[in-house]
């Protein structure tokens, strides 16, 4: 008798419990994925970025390691060929002809294959974006975290917080693009200088909100509890606080990659960008502006490529912001 009651009750009780609104139906990760997937623009942008990543890796492999598409072959008889045109069979030697038997994106003023150059450039442009943002995120998180967590520690007459935040203010006083331009123009032209300079001049926003996030987290119960348990500070910071502060960092990193790609193209336009033989989308575009009437594809293909990729990064950033920030969800 008693057994049958137990058997009857248990499944019933379970179902009641599951319908209880207070019991979470999904993990935070599942919730994040669900909200992100609802934003169709962001999902489409994600697909674009995955394709770009594949193109960039393929570009590195196929233009430098196993040279299938050679971006540096000069074919003077074939200059300014429009997209999808066939090479001139009589004048271009067999080993210089493009792999697919046609110039997918046309050729430039030296008869170089624009498709091969775009492939090579995708890796360079993307790595400029990622490395510059990596540098700025590391500096921003370290300085912001130090300022937020050890803000009250005194160094002589000044607190750590004052020191770091005043330094941030100093950096914000420089007109950013002008500063980047000055430094890039004075240093010897090199792709690494551009990455480092963009990274070193764009960390201030990250530092500020990581600090704000840390200041708020430090007062939260779970951090106080962790401190009361006597956990080492290293563990409190890296296991308990950083994962909770990482969401806005992720969003600003995504948008930062977009900004870095745009900055590189603006520098290329002014003639201070990545120098040949490296091709980036920025300097293909800057080189194509001189032939905008004779060979519009030299201008529009890299321009549209930059536009689509930067837009994709921005839209993914917006999607992440929506999915990661609970305060915005019900808007």
């Amino acid at each position, binding site marked *: 008798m008693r057994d049958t009651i137990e058997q009857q009750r248990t499944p019933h009780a379970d179902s009641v419990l599951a319908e209880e609104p207070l019991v979470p139906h999904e993990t935070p990760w599942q919730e994040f994925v669900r909200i992100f997937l609802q934003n169709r623009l962001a999902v489409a942008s994600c697909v674009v970025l995955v394709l770009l990543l594949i193109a960039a890796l393929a570009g590195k492999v196929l233009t430098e390691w196993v040279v299938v598409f050679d971006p540096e072959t000069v074919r003077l008889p074939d200059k300014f060929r429009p997209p999808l045109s066939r090479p001139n069979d009589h004048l271009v030697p067999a080993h210089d002809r493009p792999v697919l038997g046609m110039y997918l994106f046309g050729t430039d003023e030296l008869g170089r294959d624009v498709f091969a150059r775009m492939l090579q450039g995708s890796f360079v442009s993307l790595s400029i974006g990622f490395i510059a943002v990596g540098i700025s995120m590391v500096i921003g998180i370290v300085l912001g975290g130090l300022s937020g967590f050890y803000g009250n520690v005194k160094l002589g007459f000044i607190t750590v917080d004052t020191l770091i935040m*005043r330094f941030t203010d*100093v950096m914000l006083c*420089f007109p950013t693009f002008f500063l980047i331009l000055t430094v890039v123009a004075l*240093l010897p032209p090199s792709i690494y200088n551009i990455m480092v300079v963009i990274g070193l001049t764009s960390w201030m926003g990250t530092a500020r909100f990581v600090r704000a996030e840390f200041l708020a987290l430090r007062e939260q119960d779970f951090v106080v509890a962790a401190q009361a348990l006597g956990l080492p500070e290293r563990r409190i910071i890296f296991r308990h606080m950083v994962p909770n502060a990482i969401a806005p960092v992720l969003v600003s990193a995504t948008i930062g990659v977009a900004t870095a790609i745009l900055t590189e193209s603006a520098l290329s*336009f002014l003639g201070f960008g990545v120098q040949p033989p490296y091709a980036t989308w920025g300097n293909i575009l800057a080189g194509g502006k001189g032939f905008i009437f004779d060979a519009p594809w030299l201008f529009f293909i890299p321009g549209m490529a930059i*536009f689509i990729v930067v837009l994709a990064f921005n839209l993914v950033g917006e999607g992440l912001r929506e999915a990661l920030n609970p305060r915005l969800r019900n808007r």
Partner: protein
Amino acid sequence: MHAFIIRNVFQRLILLFIVSVLAHSVIHLAPGEPSEVDPSNPRMKPEDIARIRAAFHLDDPLYLQYAYWMRDLFTGELKSFKDSQPVLPKIWRRFLNSLPLFLCATLLVWTFAFPAGIHAAVRRGSLYDRASMFVAYALISIPGFFLSYIMIMWVVNTFGVPVIGMKTFGMEQAEPWYRIMDRLWHLVIPSLMSAVLGVAVLSRYVRSQMLEVISQDYVRTARAKGLDDDTVIYRHALRNALLPFVTMFGLLLPGLIGGSVIFEQIFAWPGLGRLGYEAILARDFPVILTINFIAAVLTLAGTLISDILYAVVDPRIRLQ
């Protein structure tokens, strides 16, 4: 209030000092010098280079060079390395050229961004809202010079008016009316292009501010009282949503100097941004440093003004 202002001005002067020292060191420690601009010139003998270096104090220790720069800057004696013209009048002339561009662009940004943002917030989730979101991101993502080139081609082909430079060469004898129209065409296109990014960013910001305010209790109260929609939105919500934008009057100041390098270069507009660009190319250290210094002064003044304005318009904020 006075104590607040005095203490802040003092703090900002210290910041300004650090900024100028930092800028000075970056410029002088980086490789590349004014004497090396033309290394292949066979007439540049080592003694000429030594003479140039001595004339520009380039052989002195850094702190002395800094002191010379500061002394010359504040006595108005500072001369450009490139053409020995006094720096401050040079900057002032270029500033007067940049000013109309800046004013026109700012006006465009504010007139377009506010209605667009408010409309999107009021109709949240509508087709208009989503479309304007997409357009704003598209405008943020397009490289400025790419869009400008397309725009120039379109304007020149459609309207047949030249848009490069500040005015068409050879129009001095024309009727005043033609001259004014010519100047306007030359002004509007570059301003529009430099306003594009501002419109996109600011309209998103206006939208989020409006949404923040619309969900407040006092807006619900106003609706509950039975006020009509326009009164609720424009009298109750908008006024409060505008508060943060008052501070933007202060933050606009530094925009006078930075940011316009690209557009002035595309449109051959002889403004401050281009002066800076030319100075960088010529390693004209006094001009670069002075433009940077003025930009820092404007940024610091701008943040101070915005802090004060904020306290003036928002009684909840107390300055300590």
